[in-house]
């Protein structure tokens, strides 16, 4: 939308360009007096210009507001966020600290020591995303990118079976079963998990670059889980600057995918120790610059004999921790904790 196309005098065009108004969209939300002052012209002349500009440059939203090309009003964003449902983790306590579950359009990083339950949580989410919205899912498919070889089919089937049992118990209670509706079976859950096995960092980068094209062909995918994002990057890179570039490129692509296709991206990370404040502390791997890659960060840790999840970083959630358990049926609330709450 060029200023040059406006039916005004060349002198006025010249003034517009030298004042910095090179495109029409920049004029779209200006008042005539402001423009007059800026260009050092009369208000009538400014009105004249603006009469033409809005017709070409305004991007009408459904609500009729003037918006700059590519931007959104916060009001529209709020409405969109409310429409977004979240994916349950199957543990009510963790869902509560997450504001309902893992949210779409965001990159959530989950890290913890080996054996704390990262892969278990990843598999639980890959199954849960397939549940209908009234059960805490999004009725979609999952992409599971396995870099470590921890994805075991027998475990997925075990978790899916428990999910199916919970769903049919739920349906029986609420009499929500439509006539002729066939419930999902464990192997159906497995079919809906699109599984990629990645064995080197080159494969990982190539795959993440390919996901944009893949997603346009598979619009029903609602979650991407990478288990783990770190493994192939902790080898020695001769050029550490290359590693940093690759990691930030990857982070940017994942963020774009989340926003463009309106899905959740969950990255599982490992922990390492760093020396800070005179003692060794546990921190997520890949360094400080990586910590900007994710929207939310959850750390899983042991407290005595119980597993806890802690919100380490989030723009909208309070720092809080919640206990959880890894059971034969998947991730669930920690039962002993429930008992304590009841007594109170």
């Amino acid at each position, binding site marked *: 939308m060029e200023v040059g196309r406006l039916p005004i005098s060349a002198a006025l065009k010249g003034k517009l360009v030298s004042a910095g108004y090179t495109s029409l969209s920049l004029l779209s939300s200006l008042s005539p007096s402001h423009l007059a002052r800026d260009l050092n012209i009369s208000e009538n002349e400014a009105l004249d210009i603006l009469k033409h500009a809005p017709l070409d440059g305004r991007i009408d939203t459904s609500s009729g507001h003037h918006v700059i090309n590519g931007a959104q009003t916060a009001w529209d964003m709020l409405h969109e966020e409310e429409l977004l449902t979240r994916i349950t983790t199957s543990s009510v306590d963790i869902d509560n600290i997450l504001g309902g579950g893992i949210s779409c359009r965001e990159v959530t990083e989950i890290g913890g020591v080996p054996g704390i339950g990262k892969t278990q949580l990843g598999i639980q989410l890959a199954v849960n995303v397939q549940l209908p919205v009234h059960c805490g899912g999004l009725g979609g498919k999952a992409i599971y990118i396995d870099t470590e070889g921890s994805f075991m089919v027998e475990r997925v089937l075990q978790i899916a079976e428990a999910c199916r049992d919970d769903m049919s118990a739920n349906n029986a209670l609420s009499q929500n079963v439509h006539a002729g509706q066939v419930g999902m079976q464990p192997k159906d859950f497995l079919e809906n998990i699109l599984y*990629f096995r990645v064995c080197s960092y080159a494969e990982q980068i190539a795959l993440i670059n390919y996901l944009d094209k893949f997603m346009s062909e598979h619009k029903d995918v609602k979650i991407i889980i990478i288990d783990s994002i770190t493994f192939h990057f902790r080898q020695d890179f001769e050029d550490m600057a290359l590693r940093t570039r690759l990691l930030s490129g990857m982070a940017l692509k994942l963020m774009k995918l989340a926003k463009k296709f309106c899905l959740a991206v969950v990255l599982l990370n490992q922990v390492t120790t760093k020396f800070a404040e005179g003692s060794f502390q546990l921190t997520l791997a890949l360094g400080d610059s990586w910590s900007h890659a994710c929207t939310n960060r959850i750390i899983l840790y042991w407290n005595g004999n119980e597993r806890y999840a802690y919100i380490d970083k989030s723009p909208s959630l309070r720092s809080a921790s919640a206990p959880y358990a890894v059971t034969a049926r998947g991730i669930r609330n920690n039962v002993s904790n429930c008992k304590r709450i009841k007594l109170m």
Partner: protein
Amino acid sequence: MTPENLLVRPRPTQKCTTGCPVLDRCLGGGIPCRSVTEVVGESGCGKTQLCLQLLLSAQLPPSRGGLSASSLYLHSEFPLPLRRLHQLSRARPFGPGHDPLEGIFVHPLQSVDHLLDVMPKVESFVENFKSQFPVRLIVIDSIAALFRSEFDNNPLDLRRRSSMFFKISGKLKLLAEKFDLAVVVTNQVVDLVAPNEGINGLRIGNLGCLVSSGRRVCAALGLAWANCVNLRLFLSRDKEIVSTMNGVGDECGCEPMHCRTRRRLHLLFAPHIPDTSCEYVITREGFSGVCR
């Protein structure tokens, strides 16, 4: 390699029997393929015994829980326990004309760099070895011995050591995935000094506290190596004082006591099995679990 080829249909994992049904039940069927399984324990608890037994049971047909496969034994500790291997193979009924020792290939390892040099040779060996019994099991006994002597305790060496872990583990997992192998690695223990509670604690796995021979221990090679394996088993050993219970006292009226070694296998972490443990004994016939 095109990204489309990375999309695979997840297959059920084949397991290799340990040779003992009690242990197999504990492990959900046996040692899984396409994974790296680590066996951690102090010297003398039976890691090598378990490994030798696996080298033999891998040759069993799938109907008996094996992989119908040959195995590769990479060892960093000398000498090679050949006599014990003979003894174990005689205790197992293989078919006539099948010499189990023909199905075991052995290669010594001198150092970490040697291991990295050997990996491409291992890959081409596994790829090109055409026989009725392709190689489906690789055992490295032990990984700790390779690392203990070469790296000092300063931050630079430790960081270099860490990146070696990921390099080695990356290659092992690649082999495991590409050829559907089971990889077993043994590791030693060290005394535990750091606290392991709270958000900065270094507890790894189902057991809050690993105890062997009355001492608090943890797996050698640290947190970085723990991130490199899929499954970790802990073998512990403790002395138990038992009275002989025959009711006959000696001259001073005390009951005779004797020491007994109790051995226990714990599952510290695995992606498909819950927290389990079982007692085991080591006899002439081999490593076997005990139901109590």
